[in-house]
């Protein structure tokens, strides 16, 4: 085969040594995965055995006890053992843990060629130039079977992986298959034989007394014309492969009774040293002295690929039993390699992953639903059968994929994906060409890079070249570089290249980049090389870089800008600032494609999508910390168990001791952190718990620095530091305590202290007293003298038996006294150092800031309300909606307006030239909704519609709404310079192109009104901001009058909202009228009788409009209190009863019960008011008086507010738009 195929063999590790004759991979065990080692043993011609870590590329150990070349080597499958056999005739068993040879098996009479452990029995199989094959029991270190039959060197002997068979190869040109079931039977049968018997039998090698032989030749396979060097069983099929000095690799098949030659693989032009079956694929791999590794198709026996070394003959090959890895030994060492890339080609677009399976089918995976699509396409014909595609690039605009394959020096294929996945169909209409890499660079362009010719072609979708670029010398790969750009990868740098301008925009020196991963927002990219991750901005400025000792496999961005990457055995994260850590460990290598919440989506080496659970808490927390997003941090702290030393030390290191403090339980650490962040309260608390002098000492220093002398005082007390304490009291001016200190000093008999305190206190008598006590009369005298205490002087003189003349006095000067404190500064701490409460701490402490807002502004005795009840009310509102659906059925009174409207426009269908009608005109034609006419700029017809639908006559209040709707209707697209911008109309029917169905987008949909104004209005009700509230509710009425909704269901919801808003507006206007006549007085005695009566009535009417129960409760409570205060005990009783029955607030109910008890004693009203608690009535929207059932009335056709019939024909007070009692067909909001 040609050398062009060479790139698909991927060398993972190479060692340099003398000739390698034997190789063994460390076996993989599933549990625990920590026991899986990336190790190979290499036995050398120089007598050394090497143990390598091929992943890290390090030599772990050397074992040197053999004398002469070591040819055979094998790891034990489960125990920490290995076996070797050498030209010293010896077989040695070693422990790689204790790193020494455990024992030696002697017996062979010539070079030992191969040694192998049995997969379950404690046996070792060896072959030797002494023409024998031997089986040894390594547990009792004995030879249990010697197989003779070959009549030349036996070069190789291997156990069958499952059955009791052995296959051997010999320079006698034969391959033999041996049956050892007899041996197993003998050794597993219960035995009562003596040791001597066993020995005798083991050595007999003859039929025993039952006619069993230990090992018998089953088949002799003859076909090689020269000596056979190697032979191996197939792991699952009854096949054997052998390699010989006749330069042939032969394939044999066997049944129970016979074995025969199947075919020969021809190609080696020198002796073939070794061969084996691929553990998972239908391939044979052989190595030879012609310096080649050759791969053969097992089914066709044709060569698939080959690899040639320049100078080294190959001697041996081994396969890893699980992983797709091989090792070959040659004249100068060992190479570990893969036959093919295992990274599945894939691309992510929004919620979809497109990838190519092992069968070369294109599939997609939906992240949102976690479902895998059926195959969409089969790419069987792409590249060669044994070569998987390398990359996949997806173009959402064209729903096309671009796939590259390394076959034939690199090829690409452009294929359209079918709309629906309907199975692995062969693609029709593919475009192909040759190139090393190919990526989409725009919706209709892709770039093809050819490494050999160092050229990039920009091609359009018909595969014709539109532009050619010469990349910088040494470019090895190209990646998408943001719109209109490419990232060109060379061995030592990455270049950002603008395709259109054909120039380099930026260059960054970074070595060996292999993959580029863009963040979802396209602002950052991660450049992955073998051991480094470099994060860059889209203009190729380096943001951070990190190094990994383990190979980096893949990466993907979190939506928040955290990069998650996988190494061979971990998933890790890195923040933009380079902080990184481990997210989880991996049992097997995976390729990350997406991270969403707690799930990581990846492809495994079998190209199957997998979802791995991760805990993103740590990195999210760190990210929040970096962004100073305290809410998020708080949220994380509250909702997850984020503790542990790592996060604490992280926080401390990053300069956030106050946050770390939140996590720590250990008092000592807490104390340290508290001191560090100056949180004295916590520090004091912890110091109390630990109570150690050293801590008090540190606390006192810190507290002193803060000016917190109360803590300083306490620490000095704890430390019994009297001197300092006294001085502190002096400094703070705390005379009382200073006196106490003096007493204590006296009590302790500490004269110095006493003197000091007396000095601080300016207590002369005490000082003199003390001097006298210690017999320092001269000093006592001097003190007395200087303070002018003559009597005392005399007394001292007398006591010492002296007279004044006998003393020579020095001049004493004026007596000094400490100044007296003017202000009691000791009472509070000095505000020296601001308390360092971070935003974060505040947030943590003041957990219910929202609550404060609610509590404050009650001015009229509403007391409190709670949010839960408000929610309750909302829920009830929604239940009420169902009932109103019935009413809605009556609203649809026909499309009579449409016909008329249409007449107003000229018919302009398809005149050959001249202007057409604008989309705005179409809107008006397409819709009977006033808002659509407003958006179309047809204000006049909009007003007509509103007039007919809801009797609207006063449009002034709607002006801003009209303007808003109109203003939002079109965009202005600048086109040719000098010409006015092109006007385009914004549609709510985004996907529609039928001009008869186009409708404008109306700003402020129902949802936003409910969430905005309605919520605001109700809050204003609750917080008693009625003037604002009435504005909010009127705004709702105006917003909904000129609006459109998206479903019939929303129509009824909108009508409920209209009704609710009208009722609230009415209720608020009633209450506001009451306040306007009596202000905020609750005792009305001073008002004239008619005002008093009206006020009481209005407070009663306030309870009538339909509001949320919690708000009715407020009205009732206010009415009850007012009535009660003004001796309206009958009314008060009725409100109290309603409150007890319907009230939603326990506290109010409580006071209602009390008032009820009081009122029941004398249920009479002082003033007769017009309020019949037992009658059904509504309140007139204009006069605010009752309209009893049956009496004549008129209704606002828009909001449904009732009026006395005298108001008919005037403008509604609530909506301020519609005419009361006007004929109306009902508001249209939906087409």
């Amino acid at each position, binding site marked *: 085969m040609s050398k062009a195929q060479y790139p698909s063999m991927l060398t993972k590790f190479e060692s340099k040594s003398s000739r390698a004759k034997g190789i063994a991979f460390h076996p993989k065990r599933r549990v625990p995965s920590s026991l899986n080692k990336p190790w190979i043993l290499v036995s050398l011609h120089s007598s050394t055995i090497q143990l390598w870590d091929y992943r890290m590329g390090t030599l772990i150990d050397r074992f040197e006890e053999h004398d002469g070349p070591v040819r055979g080597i094998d790891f034990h499958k489960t125990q920490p053992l290995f076996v070797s056999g050498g030209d010293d005739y010896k077989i040695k068993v070693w422990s790689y843990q204790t790193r020494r040879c455990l024992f030696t098996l002697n017996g062979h009479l010539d070079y030992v060629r191969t040694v192998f452990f049995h997969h379950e029995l404690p046996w070792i199989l060896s072959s030797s130039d002494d023409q024998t094959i031997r089986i040894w029991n390594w547990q009792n270190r004995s030879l249990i079977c010697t197989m003779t039959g070959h009549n030349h060197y036996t070069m190789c002997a291997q156990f069958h992986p499952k059955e009791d068979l052995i296959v051997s190869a010999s320079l006698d040109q034969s391959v033999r298959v041996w049956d050892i079931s007899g041996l197993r039977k003998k050794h597993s049968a219960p035995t009562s034989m003596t040791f001597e018997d066993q020995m005798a039998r083991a050595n007999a090698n003859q039929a025993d007394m039952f006619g069993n032989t230990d090992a018998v030749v089953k088949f002799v396979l003859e076909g090689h014309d020269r000596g056979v060097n190697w032979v191996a069983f197939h792991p699952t099929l009854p096949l054997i492969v052998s390699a010989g000095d006749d330069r042939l690799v032969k394939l044999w098949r066997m049944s129970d009774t016979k074995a025969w030659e199947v075919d020969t693989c021809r190609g080696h032009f020198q002796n073939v040293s070794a061969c084996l079956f691929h553990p998972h694929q239908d391939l044979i791999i052989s190595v030879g002295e012609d310096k080649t590794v050759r791969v053969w198709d097992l089914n066709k026996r044709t060569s698939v690929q080959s690899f040639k070394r320049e100078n080294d003959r190959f001697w041996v090959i081994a396969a890893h039993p699980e992983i797709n890895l091989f090792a070959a030994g040659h004249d100068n060492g060992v190479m570990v390699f893969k036959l093919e890339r295992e990274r599945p080609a894939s691309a992510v677009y929004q919620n979809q992953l497109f990838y190519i399976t092992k069968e070369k089918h294109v599939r997609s995976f939906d992240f949102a639903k976690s479902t895998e699509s059926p195959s969409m396409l089969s790419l069987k014909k792409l590249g060669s059968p044994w070569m998987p595609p390398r990359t996949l690039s997806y173009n959402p605009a064209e729903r096309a994929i671009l796939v590259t394959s390394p076959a034939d020096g690199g090829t690409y294929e452009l294929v359209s994906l079918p709309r629906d996945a309907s199975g692995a169909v062969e693609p029709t209409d593919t475009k192909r060409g040759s190139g090393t890499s190919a990526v989409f660079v725009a919706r209709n362009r892709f770039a093809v890079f050819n490494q050999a010719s160092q050229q990039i072609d920009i091609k359009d979708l018909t595969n014709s070249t539109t532009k050619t670029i010469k990349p910088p010398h040494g470019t090895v790969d190209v990646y998408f570089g943001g719109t209109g750009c490419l990232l060109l990868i060379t061995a030592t740098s990455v270049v950002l290249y603008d395709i259109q301008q054909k120039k380099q925009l930026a260059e960054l020196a970074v070595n060996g980049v292999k993959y580029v991963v863009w963040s979802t927002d396209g602002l950052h990219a991660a450049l992955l090389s073998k051991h480094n991750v470099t994060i860059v901005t889209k203009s190729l400025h380096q943001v951070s870089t990190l190094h990994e000792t383990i190979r980096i496999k893949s990466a993907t961005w979190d939506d928040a800008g955290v990069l998650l990457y996988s190494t061979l055995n971990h998933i890790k994260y890195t923040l933009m600032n380079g902080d990184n850590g481990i997210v989880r460990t991996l049992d097997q290598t995976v390729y990350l494609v997406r991270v969403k919440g707690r799930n990581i989506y990846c492809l495994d080496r079998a190209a199957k999508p997998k979802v791995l659970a991760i805990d993103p808490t740590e990195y999210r927390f760190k990210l929040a910390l970096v962004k100073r997003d305290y809410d998020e941090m708080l949220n994380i702290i509250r909702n997850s168990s984020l503790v542990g030393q790592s996060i604490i030390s992280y926080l401390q290191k990053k300069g956030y001791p106050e946050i770390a403090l939140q996590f720590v339980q250990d008092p000592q650490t807490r104390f340290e952190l508290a001191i560090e962040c100056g949180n004295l309260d916590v520090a004091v608390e912890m110091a109390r718990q630990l109570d150690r002098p050293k801590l008090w000492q540190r606390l006192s220093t810190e507290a002193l620095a803060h000016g917190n002398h109360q803590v300083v005082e306490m620490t000095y007390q704890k430390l019994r530091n009297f001197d300092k304490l006294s001085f502190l009291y002096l400094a703070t001016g705390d005379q009382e305590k200073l006196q106490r200190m003096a007493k204590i000093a006296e009590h302790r008999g500490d004269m110095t202290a006493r003197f000091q305190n007396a000095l601080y206190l300016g207590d002369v008598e005490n000082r003199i007293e003390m001097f006298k006590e210690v017999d320092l009369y001269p000093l006592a005298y001097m003190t007395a003298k200087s303070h002018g205490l003559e009597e005392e002087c005399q007394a001292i003189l007398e006591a010492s038996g002296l007279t004044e003349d006998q003393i020579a006095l020095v001049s004493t000067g004026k007596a000094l006294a400490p100044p007296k404190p003017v202000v009691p500064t000791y009472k509070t701490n000095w505000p020296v150092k601001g308390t360092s409460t971070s935003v974060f701490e505040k947030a943590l402490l003041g957990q219910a800031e929202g609550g404060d807002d609610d509590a404050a502004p009650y001015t009229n005795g509403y007391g409190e309300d709670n949010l839960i009840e408000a929610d309750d009310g909302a829920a009830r509102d929604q239940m009420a909606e169902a009932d109103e659906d019935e009413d809605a059925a009556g609203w649809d009174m026909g499309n009579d307006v449409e016909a008329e409207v249409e007449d107003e426009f000229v018919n302009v269908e398809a005149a050959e030239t001249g202007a057409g009608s604008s989309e705005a005109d179409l809107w008006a034609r397409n819709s009977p909704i006033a808002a659509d006419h407003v958006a179309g700029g047809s204000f006049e017809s909009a007003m007509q519609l509103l007039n007919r639908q809801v009797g609207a006559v006063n449009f002034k209040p709607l002006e801003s709404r009209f303007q808003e709707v109109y203003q939002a209707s079109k965009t202005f697209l600048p086109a040719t310079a000098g010409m006015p911008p092109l006007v385009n109309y914004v549609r709510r029917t985004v996907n529609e192109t039928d001009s008869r169905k186009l409708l404008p987008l109306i700003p402020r949909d129902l949802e936003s009104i409910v969430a905005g104004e309605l919520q605001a209005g109700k809050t204003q009700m609750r917080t008693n901001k009625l003037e604002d509230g009435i504005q909010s509710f009127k705004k709702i009425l105006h917003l909904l009058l000129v609006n459109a909704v998206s479903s019939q269901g929303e129509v009824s919801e909108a009508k409920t909202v209209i009704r609710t808003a009208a009722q609230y507006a009415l209720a608020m206007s009633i209450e506001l009228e009451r306040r306007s006549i009596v202000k905020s007085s609750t005792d009305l005695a001073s008002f004239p009788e008619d005002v008093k009566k009206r006020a009481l009535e209005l407070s009663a009417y306030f309870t009538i409009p339909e509001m949320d129960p919690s708000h009715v409760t407020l009205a009732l409570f206010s009415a009850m209190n007012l009535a009660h205060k003004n001796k309206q005990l009958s009314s008060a009783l009725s409100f109290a009863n309603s409150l007890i029955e319907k009230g939603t607030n326990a506290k109010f109910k409580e006071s209602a019960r009390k008032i009820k008890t009081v009122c029941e004693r004398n249920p009479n009203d002082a003033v007769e008011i017009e309020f019949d608690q037992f009658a059904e009535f509504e309140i007139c929207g204009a006069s605010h008086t009752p309209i009893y059932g049956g009496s004549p009335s008129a209704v606002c056709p828009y909001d449904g507010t009732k009026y006395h019939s005298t108001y008919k024909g005037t*403008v509604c007070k609530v909506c301020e738009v519609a005419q009361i009692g006007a004929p109306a067909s009902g508001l249209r909001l939906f087409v």
Partner: protein
Amino acid sequence: MDPYSAEGELVNIHSAFHQGQYSQVLDFDTSSFSSSNAVPARLLKLRAQIALEQYDEVIADVSGEESTPDFAAAKVLAEYLKDPWDSEEAVETAKKLAGSKGDNLGVQLLAGTVLADSGNVEEALALLSKHQGSLDAVAMIVQIHLQQNRTDLAAKEALNARKWAQDSLLVNVAESWVGLRQGGEKYQSAYYVFEELAQAPATQAPLTLVGQAISEIHLGRLPEAEAALQQALDINAQDADALANLMVLNTLAGKDAAEVMGRLEMARPKHQALLDLKEKTEEFEAARAKYTPKFEA
């Protein structure tokens, strides 16, 4: 060789002009251009100056060179745009130029602009239809058809151009103009074209960013549209078209648009959007006056 083809001298300056990178056009070094391209290159620079509203500079620059029809046309356009409400003279001159020098591309484009904008649409179309393979003319024809609300004719014109000019920049852009009228899937295609231009560092300009934002508004992706407009305003805080569309966007999103409107009034008091709104205020008053609401005293 066609000077506008991929290898021609004019391609980059021409693209820059149509990507709205007017200052790059002005800074373009054209001294090395062959003599046959000198006039078109200078004309492009003049047009860029006109786009930047430097009318007086243009008039001064070309005065004395009116004998070259291209420059005469540039002067007419500058005079016209300087004050379009008092421009009968300019329109007359444009008509004369169209009559006498109608074969000149510069005249077609610039005098055509004057005619189209002053309401002489038929004449403008007639003049522009004389062009010989000029995409600039095609783009203008498309735009005029769209202003006439004849999306069908505009689409036809663009389709014809694609047949001979394949996917050159102007064809893509003109198709996007049409697409924004047609809607449906065309919104997304238009978005791709504008986004491709707007997000590539080499071609980013307020013009293309506004185009991107508008496609996003029509696709209902308001936050993304806002981001694009913000990018445009970061480049030029006074960009009137970006402000006008930001005003629309804010209104759509239920945000207060008054502040942006104020900025627009500062930046370009006679922007179409503002004039239109003023007109509508009057219309509202007129329509409202037909009703006589009765208020209860």
